């Protein structure tokens, strides 16, 4: 574990530089332990794949004490070797058609049929490694390498909310209309983010997700 200073208002805590469920689990647990301490000056704690960011107000924070607290909390989670069992969130997807304009391109990339792409995408249970890009956008992995098509070289200016995409080994759902470069294979009517809900984001780091093929309406 290494703590790096990002300017004077953020610490970056690095675990191992790898995309791995156990390392990600440690980052998520460490983030929640640091958050629970509610140390003076700490404004936000956000985990990444294998890192976490601790954002603080430099005028209100005892930096040495904060770094010490991070080290103490890390020692409590560093030996964790398993991931917490969680319920699987099912997301129904209408594959192909207007909502999945890249389904054919992904099939061509994989050298298989569109139905094979759907079967492979729905066969796996994905882990939410982190959220970012826009509110509620979950980076999930790992996609079956056979269908892991790279993102578009030139992103689309507008991707519709609910679009389900692939970018290499990652898959995700666009929560709002936004620009985006992922290969779009389908669309869901599931609302990924709603600021008025008690828990605005459908998904949180560490959650498990399965996509289910829904008949096209």
């Amino acid at each position, binding site marked *: 574990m290494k703590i790096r200073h990002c300017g004077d208002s953020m610490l970056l805590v690095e675990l191992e530089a790898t995309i791995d469920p156990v390392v990600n689990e440690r980052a998520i647990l460490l983030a929640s332990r640091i958050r629970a301490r509610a140390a003076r000056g700490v*404004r936000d704690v956000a985990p*990444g*794949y294998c890192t976490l960011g601790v954002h603080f107000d430099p*005028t209100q924070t005892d930096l040495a004490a904060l770094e010490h607290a991070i080290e103490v909390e890390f020692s409590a989670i560093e030996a964790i070797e398993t991931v917490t069992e969680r319920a699987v969130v099912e997301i129904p997807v209408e594959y192909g058609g207007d909502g999945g304009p890249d389904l054919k391109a992904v099939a061509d990339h994989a050298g298989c049929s569109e139905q094979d792409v759907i079967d492979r995408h729905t066969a796996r249970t994905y882990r939410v490694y982190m959220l970012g890009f826009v509110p509620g956008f979950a980076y999930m992995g790992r996609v079956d390498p056979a269908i892991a098509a790279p993102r578009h070289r030139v992103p689309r200016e507008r991707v519709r909310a609910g679009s389900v995409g692939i970018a290499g080994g990652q898959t995700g759902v666009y929560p709002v209309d936004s620009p985006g470069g992922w290969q779009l294979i389908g669309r869901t009517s599931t609302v990924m983010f709603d600021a008025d809900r008690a828990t605005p984001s459908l998904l949180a780091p560490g959650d498990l997700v399965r996509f289910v093929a829904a008949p096209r309406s």
Partner: protein
Amino acid sequence: MSTAAFLVVKPGLLTSVQDLGRFGHQAAGVPVAGPMDSFSHRLANQLVGNDPDAATLEITLIGPELIVEADTVAAITGAHFEVTCDDRSVAMGASFGVRAGARLKFGRIHQGARAYLAVAGGVQTPRVLGSRATHLVSRMGGLSGRSLVAGDRIPIVTGAAQRPHRKAVGLTLPTNGRALLRVLPGPQDYWFTPDALRMMTSVSFRISPRSNRMGYRLEGPPLPRVKDGELISEPVGIGAIQVPAAGEPILLMADRQTAGGYPKIGHVISADLPLAGQLAPGDFIEFVVCSPQEAVAALIARERQLLRFADLKDAS
């Protein structure tokens, strides 16, 4: 207290509601947003007797024309605009009384890029996840998550009027569109050649037209790396100077995403971010490396500037 409104006659180029930002939800990918120049935002609030987190209007390059539908006290800080209230000139950096029905018009801009209009009691658009800050890309906060358009009514408080005639020393604005910003190296300065930091601190970067509240794209020499590729996406903070493979840096500002995969050669210190917020496309940035001690000292000096003002207020 009851509510009245600013009626937007002309919206200006990019006018949005901002408070100090939406903290606490970055784990869900929710960006912080908030003012590009947080110092001037806070100063405007102080001038009208508000908490520092009260919502103001951030006004960019071309200002709006507003009808104020209540007796109140207002203050404008930050960029130096010509402003009139019912055709009478209004001074920047001082509170002034406004009568119901008054027309507040922003004219030419002389210096800086963003002004902050505070009104006693604060702008009263609904809070979203605890904040009124507008995040344009995710269309969250402020007025329907967007910048103002003609015909909008921005709710404000009436009956919270404070005594006018408070003055304060504002931010020292960039001169001739140039700013010197102090930088702390890291967290990925080791991704770059030893020359890269020296190069970054020996030239002027021009702010590209493809810049916005999320970040400034900087035109200048590419900063050479010793490592190709990208990082595994990680959390990022305001003021980060990230460098994509092509080598042109991007300075992350108020509407930045919560995470990213480009290596960061350094961060602009908190004390200098307000100055960065007063720059516009076509302006120039020079960077200089400083020590963590200097960064803290500069921030304390900046905070004292606000406290000095508070002392004056208490004595009045």
